[in-house]
C-alpha cells in the first residue's frame, strides 16, 4: 500500500529539523532551546498519533510504505514502512520524547543546546531504526543512536560518566561490528544467488543459506541484539550506563533503546535466519529465564535506587525474550506488549528517581525513609509505577506478563525445540518465580524509601511534586491503566503482524511441519505420564 503523503518521513525527520533549528538558538538562551525541543517533540507525537490512527489494524503487511532508490549500484533504497510490530514502538518513542525533555528542565542547566540537540538526534536514530526496511538504512540509524547517547552519558552524566559512556559505547560497538560483517555476508550471498545487489530487507528474507552458515550469521546478529537488550551475561554495561546517565538519558535508554535489541530479534535475526533461529531458541530461552531470575536477585541487594531499577530491566526484558522464543502468537504478542509496558513503567520509575535526585543529590536507599509522609503525591506516583512494574492485574504489566507466561507454558513449539514435553511448563514456571522476586525487590525498596519514620533531617523539608513534574506523570499513569484495562486496543493492531511473524518463522524453519507431526505423539506422551502418576 503506497501512501500518497510521506507521513513516515515527516515523522522521522521532524526531530532533525528541530535539532538543526536548536543550533541556531543563541547560546545564552537555554529556555528557547528547551521549549523548542519540547514543541518539536510534541508536534512529532501528533504526527505519530496520526500514523497510529491511519494504520489499518486488520491488514497483515507493512503499511504507509515509502520507497525510493538511493544508491542504485548497491541496491540500497530509502525504504520506510510500519507494521504492527513497529507501530507500538514508534508510538512509544514519540510518546516518551516530550516527557524526557520535560524532565530536564531543572536537571540539565549546562550546555542545554547540546543536550537538546542530542536528544532530538537520538529521536531520529530510534524512529529510523524502527521504520527502516532496508538493512543499510537500518544500520545507519542503529549507529546514529549510539553517538548522542554516548555524549549524553559522557557529558551530562554522573561522577563515573566516562567509564560508563565508554563501556556503553564499546559493548554496543562490539555487537554492531559483528552485525555489520553478517550483513555484508548476506549482501554478497544474495548477489551470488541472484546476480543482483540489494539491501532491501524483504528481498533479503528470501536468501538461502546452508544451516551451518545461518548459525554463524544468526549468532552475529543475535549477539549484537542480545547486548542491546541486554541479555545475561551481556548486561553489565546497563547498570553503569543507567546510574551515570542523566534522567532523560535513562528514561530513553530503558524505554526505547533496549527495545532495539528485542525488536532486532523480531525484525531481523529470526526472519532472516529462521532455521538457525529455532536451533538457537532453547539457548536463548534459557538465557532469558536466567536473566529474569538473575536480574531480580541482583536487584534485591542493590543500595542505589537507580541501579536497582536498572537490574530490574534485565529481569523484565527476559520476559520479552521468553515471549519471542515461545513462538506462539499469544506469548510473542505479550512480549511485544511487554516492551511497551517496560518502557512506560520503567521510564516512569527513572523519572521519579530523577525527581528525588534533583532534590537530594543522592539515590542511596539508606538516605531515605518515611518520604510518603513528606511527599504524598510523589509516593502515590511511585506506588503506581511500582505496581505496574510488578504486574498487578489492572495495570499494563499484568497483561504482558500473563500473555508471555501462559503462551510459553502452553507453547507447542518449545517442547519440539527442546525435545522435552515439559519445556514450556518449566520455563514459564521458573520465569514465574521472577514475578515473586519482582514484588520482593520493589516493595522492599519502596518500604525503605517511603515508609518508616522520616528520620533523616535532610528529608524533612523536601517538597512534593511540582506542577511540571506532576503533569509529566499524568499521561504515564493514564497509559498504565489504559493498557491494563483495554489491552485489546493495542493487541488487535499487533496481532496480524505477530501472527505473520510466528507463521513465517515456523514455516520456513520447518518447525511447523515438525509440530504437525508432533502433537499426537506429545499428547499421548503426556497422557501416559499422567496415567502413570495416578
Amino acid at each position, binding site marked *: 500500500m503506497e501512501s500518497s503523503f510521506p507521513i513516515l518521513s515527516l515523522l522521522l525527520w521532524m526531530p532533525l529539523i528541530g535539532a538543526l533549528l536548536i543550533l541556531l538558538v543563541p547560546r545564552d538562551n537555554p529556555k528557547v532551546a528547551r521549549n523548542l525541543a519540547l514543541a518539536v517533540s510534541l508536534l512529532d507525537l501528533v504526527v505519530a498519533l496520526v500514523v497510529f490512527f491511519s494504520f489499518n489494524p486488520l491488514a497483515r503487511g507493512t503499511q504507509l510504505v515509502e520507497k525510493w532508490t538511493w544508491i542504485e549500484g548497491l541496491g540500497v533504497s530509502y525504504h520506510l514502512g510500519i507494521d504492527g510490530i513497529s507501530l507500538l514502538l514508534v508510538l512509544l518513542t514519540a510518546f516518551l520524547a516530550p516527557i524526557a525533555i520535560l524532565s530536564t528542565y531543572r536537571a540539565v542547566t549546562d550546555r542545554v543546546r547540546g543536550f537538546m540537540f542530542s536528544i532530538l538526534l537520538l529521536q531520529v536514530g530510534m524512529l529510523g531504526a524502527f521504520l527502516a526496511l532496508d538493512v543499510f538504512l537500518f544500520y545507519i540509524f542503529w549507529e546514529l543512536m549510539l553517538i548522542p547517547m554516548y555524549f549524553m552519558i559522557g557529558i551530562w552524566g554522573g561522577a563515573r560518566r566516562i567509564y560508563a559512556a565508554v*563501556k556503553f559505547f564499546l559493548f554496543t560497538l562490539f555487537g554492531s561490528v559483528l552485525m555489520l*560483517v553478517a550483513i555484508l*555476508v548476506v549482501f*554478497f*550471498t544474495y548477489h551470488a544467488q541472484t546476480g543482483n545487489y540489494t539491501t532491501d530487507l524483504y528481498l533479503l528474507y528470501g536468501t538461502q543459506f546452508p544451516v551451518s552458515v545461518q548459525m*554463524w550469521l544468526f549468532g552475529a546478529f543475535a549477539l549484537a541484539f542480545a547486548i542491546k537488550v541486554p541479555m545475561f*551475561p551481556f548486561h*553489565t554495561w546497563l547498570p553503569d550506563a543507567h546510574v551515570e546517565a542523566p534522567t532523560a538519558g535513562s528514561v530513553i535508554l530503558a524505554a526505547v533503546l533496549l527495545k532495539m535489541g528485542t525488536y532486532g530479534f523480531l525484525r531481523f535475526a529470526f526472519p532472516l535466519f529462521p532455521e538457525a533461529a529455532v536451533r538457537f531458541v532453547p539457548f536463548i530461552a534459557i538465557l532469558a529465564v536466567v536473566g529474569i531470575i*538473575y536480574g531480580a*536477585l*541482583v536487584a*534485591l*541487594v*542493590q543500595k542505589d535506587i537507580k541501579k536497582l531499577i536498572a537490574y530490574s530491566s534485565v529481569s523484565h526484558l527476559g520476559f520479552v525474550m521468553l515471549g519471542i522464543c515461545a513462538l*506462539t*502468537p*499469544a*506469548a510473542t*504478542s505479550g512480549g511485544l506488549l511487554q516492551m511497551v509496558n517496560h518502557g512506560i513503567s520503567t521510564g516512569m520509575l527513572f523519572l521519579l528517581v530523577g525527581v528525588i535526585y534533583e532534590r537530594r543529590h543522592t539515590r542511596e536507599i539508606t538516605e531515605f525513609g518515611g518520604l*510518603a*509522609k513528606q511527599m504524598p503525591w510523589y509516593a502515590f506516583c511511585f506506588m503506581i509505577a511500582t*505496581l505496574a512494574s510488578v504486574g*498487578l*492485574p*489492572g495495570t499494563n504489566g499484568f497483561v504482558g506478563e*500473563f*500473555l508471555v*507466561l501462559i*503462551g510459553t*507454558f*502452553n507453547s507447542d513449539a518449545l517442547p519440539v525445540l527442546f525435545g522435552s514435553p515439559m519445556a514450556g*511448563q518449566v520455563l*514459564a514456571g521458573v520465569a*514465574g*518465580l521472577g*514475578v*515473586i522476586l519482582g*514484588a*520482593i525487590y520493589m*516493595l*522492599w525498596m519502596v*518500604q525503605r524509601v*517511603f*515508609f*518508616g*519514620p522520616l528520620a533523616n533531617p535532610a528529608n524533612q523539608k523536601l517538597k512534593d511534586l511540582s506542577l511540571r513534574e506532576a503533569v509529566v506523570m499524568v499521561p504515564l499513569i493514564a497509559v498504565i491503566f489504559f493498557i491494563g*484495562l*483495554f*489491552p*485489546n486496543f493495542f*493487541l488487535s493492531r*499487533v*496481532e496480524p503482524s*505477530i*501472527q505473520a511473524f510466528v507463521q513465517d518463522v515456523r514455516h520456513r524453519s520447518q518447525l511447523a511441519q515438525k509440530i504437525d507431526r508432533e502433537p499426537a505423539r506429545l499428547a499421548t506422551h503426556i497422557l501416559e*505420564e*499422567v*496415567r502413570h*502418576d*495416578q
Partner: protein
Amino acid sequence: MDIKTSILLWIPLLPLFGAIVNGLFGRHFSRPLVSAIGCGTVGMAFVLGLVASADIFASNGEARLVQSVYAWITAGNISIQLSFLLDSLSVIMVLVVAGVSFLIHVYSTGYMRDDPSHARYFAYLNLFVFSMLVLVLGDNLPVLFVGWEGVGLCSYLLIGFWFEDPAKASAGKKAFIVNRIGDLGFLIGMFLLFGAVGSLSIDDLRAGTAQGLIAPGLATAACLFLFLGATGKSAQIPLYVWLPDAMAGPTPVSALIHAATMVTAGVYMIARLSFLFAISPTASAVVALVGGLTALIAATIGITQKDIKKVLAYSTVSQLGYMFVAVGVGAYFAGIFHLMTHAFFKACLFLGSGAVIHALSGVQDITKMGGLRKKLPWTYWTFLISTLAIAGFPPFAGFFSKDEILWKALSSTSHAPWASWVHLAAYGMGILAAAITSFYMFRLVFLTFHGKSRLDPSIHVHHEMKSMSYPLAVLAGLATVAGWVGASLFGIHSFADFLDPVVGAAQKTAVVMRDFAHNHSIEWAAAVGSVAVAFIGLGLAWLLYIKSPDTPWRLAERFRFTYRLVFNKYWVDEFYEAFIIRPIHAFSVFLWRIVDVVIIDGFGVNGPARLLKGIGHVGRRLQSGNVQAYAFWLFAGVAGALLYLALAVGVI
C-alpha cells in the same frame, strides 16, 4: 441486556468510584463527607446486590445472571472477557461481603474518627470492597484473579496503613509477598487448565471437565497449584505466616479483610471450582488434611498468645482450616456455610476487640486487662455471644456450621482408597481443635472482661461509641441466628438446597457416603460430642482463669519447652528466615559482587580491555606517522576481511 444483568458491573464499580473520589480529593473534604461517600457506596452496592439476586432467591438458587462487559485480552488462542456471574454461590458472597463491609465501614467512622489520614483509609477500604466483589463475581479465572491480587494489594496497603512504624510497613510487605508466592501457584493452575480446555471461563471449565478434557492427573496437578494459591490467600499451612503479622493494621481492617472476607477467598475459589476438585480425590484429600492440620496447630498457638488480636488471628487461621476440611471432604456447601457464619461472629469478635483497644487507648495485652465487663457492656455481651458461636454452643451460628463440617468429615469418604483415613484424621483434628477453640476463646473472654482489673491505673477507659456499638449488635444478632438456615440436624436444609445448583453435582461426584451417613442417632451423638468438647474447653478455661488464676503460669513453667515452642509459634518464621530468606539474600550478593563484578566485568570486559591496552602499547610503534605504512596495513586489513568473507560464503 435486561436491567438486572447490567446491574452486576455496578456492584463493584460503586465502591471503586468511592475509592477514587476519596483517594484523590478526600483530603479536601470534611470528615462526614468522606465517611458518607465510603459507607454510601458500599451500602448501595449491597442494595444493588439484593436487587440483582431477587430472581435467584425466587428460584431457590436455580437462576443465574451473566454480564459480559467487553473483550479484555485477546491474543492468539487466548480470549478473555471481562464478565461477571451471579449465581447462588456468588449471591451469598456478594451479600456477605457487601453487608459486612458496610457494617465495618460504619464502625470505622467512629474508630478512625481522629486519624489524620481518614480519607486515605476510606479510599483503601473501598478499593478493597471493589476488589473483593470482582473476585466473587468474576465469571472466569483471570477476572477472579484481578480481584484475587487486588485484595492482596489492599491488604498490603491497609496492614501498613500506619506506615511510619517500620514493623507495620514490614507486615504489609510480608503479606503481599507471601500472597504472591501463592498467586504463582494460582497462575500455574490456570495455565494447566487452559492447556487442557482452551478457555478459562468457569462454564467452559465445567463443560470441559464433564467432557473429560481434563485428565485426572492433570486435574490433580491443577487443583494442587490452585490450592497453593488458596493457602496464601487464606492463610493455611505452609503460607499462613503473614496473617498474624497482619494484625498490625487498624482493627476494623483485621475484622473485614483478615477475618470476614478476603481470607475466605481460597475457600470460595475451591467451591467455585468444585466440579474440578471433585474429580481429583487426591487433591481434595490434601485440602482436607492441610485444613485439619492448620485448624489444630493454629488453635494450639492461640492458647498462648497475649495480644487480643493475635489470639483472634490464630483463631481465624484455625477456623479457615475448618472450611478447607469442608471443601476437602466434598461438603462444599458446609464450607460456604461456615464461611458465612464465621464472617459474622469473627467480624463481631474483631470489632469487639477494637472497641476494647479503642476504650483503653491502644492496650492490646490481655494480661493487662480484666474486669471490663461492667465498663463496656455492649462490647462484652456481643463478644460473649460471638464467643459462644465460635466455640460451637447451640443455638448460636457457629455450632450448626462447624457441626455440619465435622459430621460430613466423619460420615463420608471419597473414591481414593486411603481417603477414608484422611477424612477420619480431619474429623479427629477438627474435634480436638474444637475443644481448644472453646478453651482459648473463653480464656480470652475471662482475661479481658472478667476477674479483677489489671489495668495500668493511668489508663482512663473511654465510653463506647454508638457508631461502634450498633454494628456490633447487628453482627452479634447474625452470629446468633445465621446458623438456622442450615440446621440439618433439625432437618433444615435451606442453605444446602440454595447452593445445590452450583455445588450439588460436584458433591455427588466427590463424596462416598459411609453406611451410617443417614443414621440420625449417630448424627445426634456426634453433635452431642461436639457440644461436649466445647463444654470441656469452657470448663478448663474457667478452672484456669477464674478459679485458680495462678495455675497457667505454673503450667507454663512446668512445661517450659512446650510452652515456649507454642508461644513462639513453633519457630516457623525463624525457620523461613534462616533457610529461605537468608540463603537467597546471600546468593544474590554473590551474584552481584562475584559474578557481575569479578567474573563478567573483571575477566570478561575489563580483562580484555587491559589486554588490548597492552597490545596498544605495542601497536603504538606501528604508528610511525608514515602514510605508506598506514596504507599497507589498511590494504592488508581489507584484504584479510574480504578473504574471510569469500571463504565463509563459499565463493572460493
